[in-house]
């Protein structure tokens, strides 16, 4: 038997939330080659973002629905760097808190998604139940569940008052045992472990070759986390990046699960840091110059490049989203895998096609 079969998976597939096409070359049940096709969701965001730098702070959130706050934080950081202004400390801490809240919601979505693909609907519902707590908390903090619209150039729009601080504390102490319960299920449940352990391996060398970032890189033993740069208020808290060596679907899932618990720690650590002060700084004039800024989005390093020319329009906005480098790495993971494991491997990368195509 030397003939191979080509099987397309996607752009519409029950396992994928978004349009993504993987063209698989199969030899009996084994994958021997995979090609990724993107672009089903391309909206020309980079062009649209350069039309008006002030209105773009709302449009950047619409690049992606699950890391919207990270997008606007990265964009505002870049424009602030061009202006050369330092954001008030209170605003930076509030940004950190909302970013970590969004990391929990995003990771719980990814965990629920992989549980669903493995065939574990019950666990999926459990993940989304805990996620709802954070979604409601964020709605109270910022005024919206998905697109917070809270970051503006120069700070944040809405302050956190003392009552809200207590509310965040309460939700976090309520959330911690729930996340620990989820952690126990994910790490020990035999159904889940059997479907993910040793599946879709990405070695350390491959991880560097494919330039992967975030939980995917950290699960393959590459200890890189942009939060160590100390943007926002990350220089004030104790970061302990989660790094695992196995590089399989199980490792990627467990990195996300551990990071959820670390995020709860970080939010609790941030709250006492809040000192009186203003939360927004007004900037004058149009920006001029070039700026690069990075934040650690839930899926990994998110980079913005902005070139401003002293006008309302921007010369160039370039977004390097984490999914843009993580998703193509399936081409390195799929060869050798069984056909039934393909959805699990793809979903373990937490693919966000909205981000990838922009």
């Amino acid at each position, binding site marked *: 038997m030397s003939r191979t079969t080509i099987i397309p998976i996607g752009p519409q597939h029950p396992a994928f939330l978004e349009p993504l096409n993987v063209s698989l070359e199969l030899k009996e049940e084994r994958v021997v080659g995979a090609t990724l096709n*993107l*672009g089903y969701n*391309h909206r*020309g965001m*980079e*062009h649209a973002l*350069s*039309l008006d730098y002030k209105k773009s702070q709302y449009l950047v959130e619409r690049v992606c629905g699950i890391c919207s706050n990270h997008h606007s934080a990265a964009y505002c950081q870049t424009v602030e760097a061009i202006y050369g202004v330092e954001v008030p400390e209170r605003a930076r801490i509030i940004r950190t808190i909302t970013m970590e809240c969004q990391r929990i919601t995003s990771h719980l979505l990814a965990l629920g998604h992989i549980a669903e693909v493995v065939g574990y609907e019950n666990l999926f519902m459990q993940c989304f139940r805990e996620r709802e707590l954070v979604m409601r908390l964020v709605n109270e903090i910022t005024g919206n569940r998905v697109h917070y619209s809270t970051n503006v150039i120069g700070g944040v729009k809405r302050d956190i008052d003392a009552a809200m601080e207590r509310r965040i504390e309460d939700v976090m102490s309520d959330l911690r045992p729930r996340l620990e319960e989820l952690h126990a299920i994910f790490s020990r449940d035999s159904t889940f472990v059997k479907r993910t352990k040793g599946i879709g391996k990405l070695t350390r060398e*491959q991880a*560097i*070759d*494919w*330039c*992967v970032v975030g939980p995917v890189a950290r699960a393959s033993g590459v200890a*890189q986390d*942009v939060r*160590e*740069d100390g943007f926002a208020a990350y220089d004030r808290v104790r970061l302990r990046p989660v790094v695992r060596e196995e590089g399989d679907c199980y490792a990627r899932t467990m990195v996300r699960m551990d990071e959820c618990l670390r995020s709860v720690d970080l939010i609790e650590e941030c709250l006492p840091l809040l000192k009186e002060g203003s939360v927004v700084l007004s900037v004058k004039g149009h920006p001029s110059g070039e700026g*690069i800024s*990075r934040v650690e989005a839930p899926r990994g*390093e998110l*980079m913005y*490049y902005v*070139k401003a020319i002293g*006008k309302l*329009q*921007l*010369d*160039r906005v*370039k977004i*390097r989203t984490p999914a*843009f*480098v993580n998703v*193509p*790495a399936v081409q*390195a993971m799929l060869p050798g895998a069984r056909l039934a494991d393909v959805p699990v491997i793809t979903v373990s990368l937490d693919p966000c096609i909205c981000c990838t*195509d922009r």
Partner: protein
Amino acid sequence: MSEGNGGKPHQDIRGMAYQMRASGARLITIVGVDRGDGTIELIYLFDRNGDVEDRRFVVEAEEEVDSISDIYAGATNMERENMDLLGMRFKGLEPGLLLVPGKSVKAPLRKRSEEGT
């Protein structure tokens, strides 16, 4: 961010990529900026132990540029993205990652004389 080397000839791209790969740097992305005079500035951004380093090259828009996709596998899509959005050419790569060639707008991020964006 370092100031870079202000636009070396593009024949050095592969040598630079080899050097960066050997030093353990991670490629962040390749930014293409249309300078408005028929040339495109290619900014290769690297992460070396948490610091962003940039290497800049200026190429003619219609020129065929050396691909570094065999040095960094992840660079393939970054280069193909620049091919689609800026209408560049990279050696040995096909366009059509994000846009369908022939059906979509050609090179939407290229500056046109009538509009300033």
